[in-house]
């Protein structure tokens, strides 16, 4: 992972989306500070245990972990975290967090909970991909992020002409089964 001079360009070390027990829904690391899977899990565990009792539902909260700053926000059974270095501008981290949270809200059409997030995991992962690239902030405006993700999602754009009859049928069948499951 890139090792560019971090003091001059704001950089994000990781973005975490955990559930209400601290399990991963989706995580993305941009820094090699946590090189192994166990280091990452350890970090997530310590962040979760330290924060899960706080009230980060109305406003984003903030905490320090050794040399890192973590901003976080909880909604339903989802915990959103953004981590940066301890000399990072806290408000930039908070802006990224807000962008992430709002974009997820748009993508999940306000059904922000773990189940919905997992069912649309592809969109969540695309969303992460559109917010930060290798630690550098790509976009923080939630509607732009969601727009980039959504415009290619199943329901809207894919022009019908590009779908074969069988694909269209498959889509229809899928929708049908989904609605049955609900």
């Amino acid at each position: 992972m890139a090792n560019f001079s971090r003091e001059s360009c704001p950089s994000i070390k990781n973005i975490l989306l955990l559930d209400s027990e601290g399990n991963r829904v989706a995580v993305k690391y941009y820094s090699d500070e946590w090189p192994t899977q166990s280091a990452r899990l350890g970090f997530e565990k310590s962040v979760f245990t330290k924060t899960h009792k706080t009230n980060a539902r109305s406003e984003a909260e903030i905490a320090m972990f050794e040399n890192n700053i973590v901003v976080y926000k909880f909604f339903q059974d989802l915990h959103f975290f953004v981590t940066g270095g301890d000399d990072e501008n806290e408000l930039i981290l908070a802006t990224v967090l807000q962008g992430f949270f709002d974009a997820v809200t748009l993508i999940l059409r306000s059904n922000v909970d773990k189940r919905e997030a997992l069912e649309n995991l592809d969109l969540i992962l695309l969303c992460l991909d559109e917010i930060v690239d290798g630690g550098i902030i790509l976009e923080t405006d939630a509607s732009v992020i969601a727009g980039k993700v959504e415009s290619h999602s199943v329901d809207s754009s894919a022009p019908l002409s590009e779908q074969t009859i069988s694909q269209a049928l498959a889509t229809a069948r899928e929708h049908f089964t989904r609605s049955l499951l609900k």
Partner: protein
Amino acid sequence: MAMSQPIGKKDDDRDDEGEYSPFLGIEKGAVLQEARVFNDSQLDPRRCSQVITKLLYLLNQGETLTKAEATGVFFSVTKLFQSKDLVLRRMVYLIIKELSPSSDEVIIVTSSLMKDMNSKTDMYRANAIRVLSRIIDGTLLTQIERYLKQAIVDKNPVVASAALVSGIHLLQTNPEIVKRWSNEVQEAVQSRAALVQFHALALLHQIRQNDRLAVSKLVTSLTRGTVRSPLAQCLLIRYTSQVIRESGITQTGDRPFYDYLEGCLRHKAEMVIFEAARAITELNGVSNRELTPAITVLQLFLSSSKPVLRFAAVRTLNKVAMTHPMAVTNCNIDMESLISDQNRSIATLAITTLLKTGNESSVDRLMKQITNFMSDIADEFKIVVVEAIRSLCLKFPLKYRALMNFLSNILREEGGFDYKKAIVDSIVILIRDIPDAKESGLFHLCEFIEDCEFTYLSTQILHFLGNEGPKTSDPSKYIRYINNRVILENATVRACAVSTLAKFCATVDSLKPRILILLRRCLYDNDDEVRDRATLYLSILGDDASVGETDESKKEFVFGSLDIPLVNLESSLKNYEPTEEPFNIDFVPKEVKSQSLAEKKAPGKKATGLGASHNGPPSTVDAYEKLLSSIPEFSHFGKLFKSSAPVELTEAETEYSVNVVKHIFDGHVVFQFNCTNTIPEQLLENVTVIMDASEAEDFSEVSLKPLASLPYDSPGQTFVAFEKPEGVVVGKFANTLRFIVKEVDPSTGEAEDDGVEDEYQLEDLEVDSADFMLKVGVSNFRNAWESMGEDCEKVDEYGLGVRESLAEAVNAVINILGMQPCEGTEVVPSNSRSHTCLLSGVFVGNVRVLVRLSFGIEGGAKQEGPKQIAMKLAVRSEDQAVSEAIHEMVASG
């Protein structure tokens, strides 16, 4: 797409299903099987997307693929480029990035990605660029460079940003290629799209970061122009601070670009306001006038409803309070309301800031608030608070009672080792520095060891109690606590308690008979060390102790700390050969040795440098001693006081290389010249150094020991000895190397029979007062200073003239005196306007010397550049003449 779908719609079913997950029970092997659909001739994009999502899910959960599995998946994924399905393509991009294929695999996808890079679909272009830049190497990069340059100036902002961000990453691996794009990047900086400007600015700065002038130009033009996004504005603020840092203050005292930073404080985005405020507080030597507007906006943030904003502000103010406590006092009221903040990080930062800025009258109120707060924060925060309280107490010694009570209360509560150690350390420091606090402090410590689970802390406290307890008004009250340790604790603590009892016994006569009884009981302890210590102390202090030992020497034995560096003792013991003469600890050198200079200065080009050769100069002090005592002429000079570090008398890489070591004895000086002949065609014989002592009248030459032969590249020594009066004698010597040179036939290595007498001019050598000072540190300067007393103190003030910096002046004085800096006081924090430096040493004649140097900057508040520096020098020693001699050294130095 219905955004406003009611939230509660599915709630009913969820309860029944419990932990429902679409990925429940999926497993790597099965998903890899499923991935075979990638190879189907008739692709089902939906199905393929789902499989990729499952793979990504597994990877995200921490599952790893073996090399073979990853390669397999990668190859089948590349087939999916055939599909025109947009969703699938995006998932393909994602998984390629996750799989991070090796360079030989990359070839397979590059053509597909390059095709996408030139697609008409913006989304393809942007994503293909980001994927490619992540996986390609330098050679491939040159192939696609043209497209990337185009992309940077693409009219679609997403494409441009993708290319710019890729540029930032690629700059790390292929700087020379990315640097060629600066024209395009420059153009992108002017982009109307907010984030394109941000990314372009970041890349342009990184391309130019080593070119000060270019960065300065960039900042100048942009601070006047339009910056469209808050993120770009933050970047510009950072670059501006960098330019300010490098340019210093102009003649008029104004800081360039300060107005720009101040202007940013009125920006509409909080991110920018904060970045600017922080930048102002971090300016080098920031003045109060410059600080005020930044502090004002930070103060507003303190009462924000957003925790992040409060945290950012209080953290910055906390840092400012370290250097400019007065500037922050205006925020004290807002700060106090933060003590009860839900977010404990904010509360802790608020408290420590208040402790730094608080005044004497607010201490009591503050302590009350902190007490409530301490119970619900983590240990690491508590340590921060304890440290802040310690410094507050040192600032307001009159308030020691409240602060000491606070410390003793928290000492009784639950806590880990580090936290307890921080409290104990603080109490110890307060006892040392505030005499009134001693009795109550010692009492609190005694209470603590009654129920202390940490052996380390118990022993530290017992040791400290032994030193301080006997000096209190009623030493007897501590005996109970100490003896309880002997009865109740583990062996380590028991042994330590025995030593503490012995210290009381040696100092307080009235307690002696009773303590001796306690010590005698320890003779039956089941631990060796405890018994040994008891036996030792009883034989020294007991009634039947050998007569002749004075009380003074007993005391010194019990309290005596080992003032010899353990390394030196170890090497002396190793060198000691069993003879009829017992090992004498007095002969262990006390000098703190740095790495031998001879070794460091050895010419790098030759393997056999000065220090490396077998007969090269011995590098340690005891080796010098051995060498000198082996020379009959010098053996009657007595005990070697000090050997200097080698002083070079020739330039590097000359024909002959000579350095000299000054050996100081009470009545003599021996100069040891280490000579090396660097000419293969020459053999030198009868080598001597002629020392002209006309500028060193107090010295008279007594003997000269020539070096018989000095062949090529094989160092040898010649000596000159002078007699001198006792004490400090300084002088300057002009030196000439004199020898007989003989030609050597390089092929045979044989020298001619006839030689020619020749001379070689060496540099002058000075014997200065620092040569008469041994660097000997003390562990506790304050104690040593106090026990030395004021009898032979001499204090005076000196102007040191204009100096480059405070640190430079401090170093200069340390070098003149040649003493050992204590407690790390040789380090001068940047930006400080005054500094105190503590030195310790032993002066010739074995006189212990302690020096306290207080430096200050005179005159106006000029921040940068040379300053007028004044110094107060306080010397304490065992001899008034020596104290005066030290002043003499500084006055003439």
